[in-house]
C-alpha cells in the first residue's frame, strides 16, 4: 500500500486542521499538519510518553546503535524532569530536543575518539562504509512481513543518508523535517540563529534530494 500523501491531500488536511491555504515553498511547510497532530502535553510524564519512541528513533538514527540511543534518551529524560520540569509545557519540546542533541553529540565525539584509538591499535571492526558493526538488530516480525521489511529498508536507507550529512545538517533535518519543530524552536534546540537553521536545512535538502528514490 502506498501511504505517501500527495500535496493536495496534505493541503486538504492542513485546511481541515484550520491552517488555511498552504503555499508550498519547501519542507518547512510540512510542519502544520504534524504540529496539529501533537497537542501540548498536560504533564511532563505524558510529554515524555508521547516523545520517547521518536526520541529513541532520532538517537538511533544519529548513533546507529540502539543501546546507546536508549542511554541518550534516558539521560535526556532525567535532565528534562530534573532541571526543567517546572517550565511551561510548550517549552518542553525544544528543551528536550536540545538536551538530546547535546547528549548525542557527546556520544558521537566519544565514539570518534574510541574509534581513533581502536584504529590506531588495529582493533577496529568496521564495515565497508566505515560504520561500526553490527548496524542492524534482528527484525521484529509483524503482521505483514513484506511491508515491514520494506519499511525497515527505507528507514535504514534514510538513516544512512542522514548519518552521512555533516552534524549540524543532520540535526536540522531531524528537528525541522522529521520532528516538525518550527524555525525558532529548532534554533533554540540547536543553540544557533534562525538564519543558520535555514542555511543548514537548505544544504541538507540539497544533499538528500537525489536520494528520494532509494527511500521509496
Amino acid at each position, binding site marked *: 500500500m502506498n*501511504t*505517501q*500523501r500527495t*500535496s493536495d491531500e*496534505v493541503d486538504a488536511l492542513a485546511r481541515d486542521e484550520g491552517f488555511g491555504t498552504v503555499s*508550498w*515553498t*519547501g*519542507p518547512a*511547510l*510540512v510542519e502544520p499538519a*504534524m504540529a496539529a497532530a501533537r497537542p501540548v502535553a498536560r504533564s*511532563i*510524564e505524558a510529554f*515524555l*510518553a508521547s516523545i*520517547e*519512541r*521518536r526520541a*529513541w*528513533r532520532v538517537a538511533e538514527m544519529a548513533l546507529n546503535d*540502539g543501546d546507546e540511543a*536508549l542511554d541518550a*534518551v*534516558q539521560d535526556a*529524560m*532525567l535532565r*528534562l*524532569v*530534573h532541571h526543567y*520540569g517546572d517550565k511551561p509545557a510548550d517549552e518542553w519540546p525544544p528543551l528536550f530536543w536540545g538536551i538530546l542533541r547535546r547528549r548525542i553529540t557527546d556520544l558521537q565525539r566519544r565514539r570518534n575518539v574510541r574509534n581513533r584509538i581502536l584504529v590506531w591499535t588495529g582493533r577496529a571492526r568496521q564495515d565497508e562504509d566505515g560504520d561500526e558493526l553490527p548496524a542492524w*538488530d534482528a527484525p*521484529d516480525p*509483524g503482521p505483514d512481513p513484506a511491508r*515491514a521489511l520494506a*519499511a*525497515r529498508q*527505507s*528507514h535504514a536507507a*534514510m538513516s544512512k543518508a542522514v548519518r552521512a550529512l555533516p552534524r549540524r545538517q543532520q540535526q536540522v*533535518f531531524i528537528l525541522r*523535517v*522529521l520532528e*516538525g519543530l518550527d524555525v525558532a524552536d529548532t534554533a533554540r534546540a540547536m543553540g544557533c540563529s534562525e538564519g543558520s537553521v535555514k542555511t543548514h536545512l537548505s544544504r541538507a*535538502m540539497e544533499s*538528500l*534530494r537525489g536520494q*528520494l528514490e532509494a*527511500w*521509496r
Partner: protein
Amino acid sequence: MNTSPAKTNNADRELAMRAQEIYQEACANVDVRTHAQLAAARRNAMTAARAPSHRRVWLPAAGAMAACALAVGVIFWRPASAPAPAQNPQTALSDADLPLDADNRQMGIYQNLEFYQWLARQPDARTPADGAPQ
C-alpha cells in the same frame, strides 16, 4: 545543471513528506523490548524527580564541614621544616595559650607551666651542678 525553484520546491516537499512517513512508521514500529525499556526509563526519570534528594541536604553540610576543616588546618598547620619562632621565655605563657575549656583543677597546671618549662631546661637533677647531694 539548473533547476527551476518550483521544481526544487516540489522535490524538497516530496522528500520531506517521504522522510516523515518513514520516520513515523519507524516510530510506530519500535520493537516491544525497546518500548518497555523506554517506559522504564521514563518511570525512572519521574521517580528520581519525585524522590527527595539526600544529596541536596548533605552537600551544603559536607561543604561547610570541609571548609571548617580547611580553615582549622590553615590556621594550625606549621611546616615541619620551618624553624620554630624564637620565644621569649618570659612571654611564653600568656592567657591566649590557655585552652578555652580549661577548668579550675587544670588552671593550676597551666599557671605553673612556666615553672615546668624552666625545670625541663635544667641539667639532670643527679649532676653535681644542680647542688644535689653527692
